[in-house]
């Protein structure tokens, strides 16, 4: 998978690049809009991450032009602006998602994967992890061909864990993924623990190995080892 990151903040760009490299994605970086257009004209990308506050012009214009020239590319807007208007305009222009800074890299990763999945395979691709098979279109989860009935939150959690496999996930990032802006209502992270416990139990009941490891004081890690 090939990503293009259009972001003027070098430190953030480096972090994002490193993160996706570990995911075996190729993540190229353009510091401004002009060089981004150059790169897009030469290479083919699966998804473009655009900071809409670029030094050389309004990022929304960049999104507009990208969409016009390359309608098949997935676009995720990254912005420090939470302005409602920008968000709506960005999504209306055809961007696939809108992420407000600061964000968790694991969240960005999950959204990039969702966009690529939707774009490349019209959402019909199966997600596999070890013995688990997920059909995103039908919200269908199975282990060894046995269906597992999950609640909405458990399903979201599973997708998020698989998207960020082999990584340490903080409790905050899980909470924010599941509850969004309500995450700060979590006076403690018991909710996450409850969902994790239930999910783990449902998976293991169908003979799935325990992929989930708790990292003391930090969060969880989903891996086959």
């Amino acid at each position, binding site marked *: 998978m090939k990503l293009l990151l259009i972001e003027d903040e070098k430190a953030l760009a480096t972090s994002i690049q490193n993160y996706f490299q570990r995911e075996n994605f190729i993540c190229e970086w353009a510091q401004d809009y002009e060089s981004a257009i150059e790169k897009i004209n030469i290479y083919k990308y699966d998804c473009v991450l655009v900071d809409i506050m670029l030094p050389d012009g309004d990022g929304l214009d960049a999104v507009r032009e990208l969409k016009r020239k390359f309608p098949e590319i997935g676009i995720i807007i990254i912005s*420090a602006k939470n302005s409602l208007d920008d968000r709506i305009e960005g999504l209306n222009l055809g961007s696939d998602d809108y992420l407000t800074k600061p964000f968790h890299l694991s969240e960005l990763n999950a959204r990039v994967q969702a966009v690529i999945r939707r774009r490349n395979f019209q959402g019909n691709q199966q997600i596999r992890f070890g013995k688990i098979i997920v059909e995103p279109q039908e919200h269908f989860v199975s282990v060894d061909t046995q269906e597992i009935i999950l609640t909405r939150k458990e399903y979201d959690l599973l997708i998020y864990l698989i998207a960020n496999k082999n990584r340490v996930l903080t409790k905050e990032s899980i909470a924010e993924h599941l509850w969004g802006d309500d995450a700060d209502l979590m006076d403690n992270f018991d909710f996450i623990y409850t969902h994790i416990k239930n999910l783990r139990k449902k998976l293991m009941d169908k003979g799935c190995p325990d992929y989930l490891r708790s990292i003391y004081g930090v969060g969880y890690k989903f891996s086959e080892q």
Partner: protein
Amino acid sequence: MKLLAQILRYQLVTSMVVLFLGAGLFYVSVRYLIDREANKELFQSQVKVRWQLKHLETLPVYILQLGDSLQLEPVRYPGRSFIRETSMLNLAENEFQPYRQLVFYERALGQWYRVTISKMLLQRQHLMEAVVMTVTFIVTVMLISLLVLNSWLSKRLWKPFYKTLGKLDAYQIQQHETLTFEPQKTLEFDQLNQSVTHLTSRVTTAYQNLKEFTENASHEIQTPLAVILSKIEGLFQDESLTESQLVALSSVSEAANRLGRLNQALLLLTKIENRQFLAGTDPINLVPIINSKLRDLEDLIDQRELSIQTDLQPFGPVIHPALAEILVNNLLTNAIRHNVEKGKIIIILRERILSVRNTGKPLNANPEQLFERFRKESTLSASLGLGLALVKTICEVNGQNLKYDIDNEWHVLTVSW
């Protein structure tokens, strides 16, 4: 009181004073002229009477004009002649009427006579009547013409003023418009319009600058925060970190997350205060918002084993949809956060009122203080302390009323519009 009405009041008072003074002066001067005329006539009569007395044995009656009367009294010694005024009974009209009398002494046939010629001053009465009538007429005509002039002036001359006033009333700073006006014939109104134009253009620029500053400041803070968080997340993946290092890193991560949320919430508060969320014209139906929010908060509600009762009718205030969501969200999360285990929440939505009641612990602070920013009743660290401040600000900006009542174990937040 309208300016024109005030001007009219002064005009009326002044013209009344002038009119009555004028009427007095008129009366005095005309009376003086009449008196002089009467005196002249009296002296003419005196001359005639003297001549007759000298040349004739008796005084014929015909020398006297109608209304005058002549009296002759024999006296022993002559005195000084004088003119006096007196009232005498007029038998024909049976009333006292003013007379002017000339008294003088004349010798005829060796005998001194005191001659009194009286002249009736009927003209003076007529004069009084005429003056009063004229003044009344002038006052009436003036009053009517002033009123008519005034209403005409307020319709015509003051029109540009009311137009400017209307524009100023309708002025909304968020729309970044500078008010402009057509040139006016009236110098003052033209100046006023120019000042308004300058003022609004300065205000718009200042507002724009402030808005940009707020947005930029937020942007500038969010980006370093994003860097911090991304670096922390990178570090978490480092397997060589010890447990204590991971715990420390986790605290850093929590604090940075919190800072980010705080910044967002403050920015939102500023934006609402800057009235960047303008209400539409139609009321927003709050029922779907409440229901979807309750679904989102299901986990929390279940976990605390709260029971929810709703009694919702499809109504809502006129408000920006995003603000309606924040309002509902913050009211509900507040009711959940400050509830007790196995507590209750009752949500009632009526035509002009939304009330959220929740069971809770007794309050230490004055309920109104809970609307202040960063005021926390409990020391729950996850709470930003901005939830109710946001609700309060939204209500203030959109003209809704927010009330916090405590009824035994019940905490009631009521929004009315």
